């Protein structure tokens, strides 16, 4: 007996079997699914052990941990959990950079993620700076790391003196672009006001090669523009008050008084908020430009 079933019939039978199996699997996953893994465990935290564990495959292991860091950031950012949000980010980045101490992107983007304010990030500029310092330890002449530390100070900690000194240090390093020296000077002199910020950001927009950094700079510039707009609006409210003798009750009053052409919106199209009892203008509550960075609220 060579074959009871003709070849075509056999193929059909096999295909039917596989399709039926896939159907059962699908049914199982819809009716009796396993809850998604809540696993947030990192077995290895010690860089030294990791180094030994991965033998000569450190670079690949660093890549894997980097991918885990990105996924962790992305997953937590999209989830609603509040408990321990982003808590594995720093250990993952630390391990990545221990396994591969010259992993440029891990240092720079990692610092960006770490410094980001809640709820978009862990809001840990100190960890961001530590990471960049580690990068400098291994590559002491990379001006980008020094520049980034300056930026974190400027944008997140509000320590303008430190920011200026880091920009200065960056300017000293080989291959540093010419405009850093100017930024350092400007920061020092003007103590981090809006004009200086605007200048730094415009330079970043034109010089940055990474889309992400460029987009971040764009957003920050829009925030500065919003602050300028708020100042302008506050001025207009003052004018109205002088003219009419009381605070306007809303934007409509200003429009009728021909002080405004229409409803004032920020660059995301969200209307500015106005509190008629205090006369304070602020960004609309739903605006994606919120929250505003620390160092720039004041003039």
């Amino acid at each position: 007996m060579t074959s009871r079933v003709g070849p075509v019939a056999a193929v059909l039978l096999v295909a039917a079997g596989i399709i039926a199996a896939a159907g059962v699997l699908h049914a199982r996953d819809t009716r009796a699914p396993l809850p998604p893994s809540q696993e947030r465990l990192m077995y290895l935290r010690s860089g030294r052990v990791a180094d030994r564990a991965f033998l000569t495959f450190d670079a690949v292991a660093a890549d894997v941990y980097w991918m885990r860091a990105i996924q962790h950031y992305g997953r937590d950012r999209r989830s609603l959990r509040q408990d321990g949000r982003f808590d594995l980010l720093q250990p993952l980045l630390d391990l990545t950079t221990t396994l591969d101490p010259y992993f440029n992107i891990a240092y720079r983007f990692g610092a960006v993620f770490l410094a980001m304010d809640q709820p978009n990030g862990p809001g840990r500029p100190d960890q961001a700076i530590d990471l960049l310092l580690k990068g400098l330890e291994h590559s002491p002449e990379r001006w980008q790391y020094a520049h980034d530390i300056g930026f974190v100070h400027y944008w997140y900690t509000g320590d303008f003196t430190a920011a200026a000194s880091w920009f200065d240090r960056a300017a000293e390093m080989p291959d540093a672009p010419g405009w850093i020296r100017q930024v350092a000077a400007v920061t020092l002199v003007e103590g981090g006001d809006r004009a200086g910020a605007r200048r730094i950001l415009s330079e970043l927009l034109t010089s940055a090669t990474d889309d992400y950094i460029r987009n971040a700079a764009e957003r920050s510039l829009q925030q500065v523009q919003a602050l300028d707009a708020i100042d302008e609006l506050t001025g207009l409210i003052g004018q109205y008050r002088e003219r009419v003798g009381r605070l306007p009750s809303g934007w409509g009053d200003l429009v009728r008084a021909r002080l405004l052409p229409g409803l004032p919106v920020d660059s995301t199209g969200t209307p500015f908020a106005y509190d008629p009892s205090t006369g304070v203008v602020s960004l609309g509550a739903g605006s994606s430009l919120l929250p505003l960075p620390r160092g720039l609220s004041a003039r």
Partner: protein
Amino acid sequence: MTSAGRIGLVAWHVFKESVRDRVLYGIAGFAILLVASAFLIAQITAGQDVKIIKDLGLAVIELAGVLMAVVIGVGLVSREIDRRSIFALLAKPLPRWEFVVGKYCGLVLTLMVNVVGMTAVLYLFLFYAQSRIPIDSQAVLDSPVADPRLLLVVLMIGVELALLTAVALFFSTFSSSALLSIVFTLGLFVTGLLSADLRHFGDIVDVSPVVAWCVQAVGWAVPAFSAFDIKSQVVHGLDLPRGFVAGTLAYAALYVGALLVAAVSLFSRREFK
């Protein structure tokens, strides 16, 4: 003699041959060493001792099982065909389908015996650990130290290996090179492990619907080896949803059936120069 009798005879001889195969002992011995070293590794990670032993132990059992399934599954049949010891056998009144099914049963039997052996060793270590850890510390653990539910995990691993063996047997019935069969089998195994991602490809990656559909179809068609993983669940002491085990067993049974039909069909047509 009935079909079942002949199949049993072939299966028994497969088992006998593998018991006398040194490769098997090599893999098993290595696995036991690794499980033993779980104790050492448990010291390095911050206070997760029992969990580490369980996780590592189960992973080692699974990995060793995979190695055995592939190497022995492919090796046995390829060697027979290569050395032509199969010729005299095929001239006997043994239909080819009985030969294939008998081989499969024998291989699965071999694997199960080994998996049971390694599980016993794991439990020995766990019982030892249980005797050494103070009772109050044990109370706060997610699951008991020598948790009988681990047997459920081992059952799932066993079913996974049965599916993998069917894949290995399928390739070796028609491929002329043992190495090629091993490569294909391992390749399909890895793809199967990633099949969950393939099945949701369209949701994760931005590509045209046609490409997404093709990739997803592959994800559904390949044997889903990742569907048997309940290690995390059981080690954390969580419940399994109702119908999960039954559904998984049904999936494996259907797929194994399909593979055996394919293997029998190919082997029945095979010629031996």
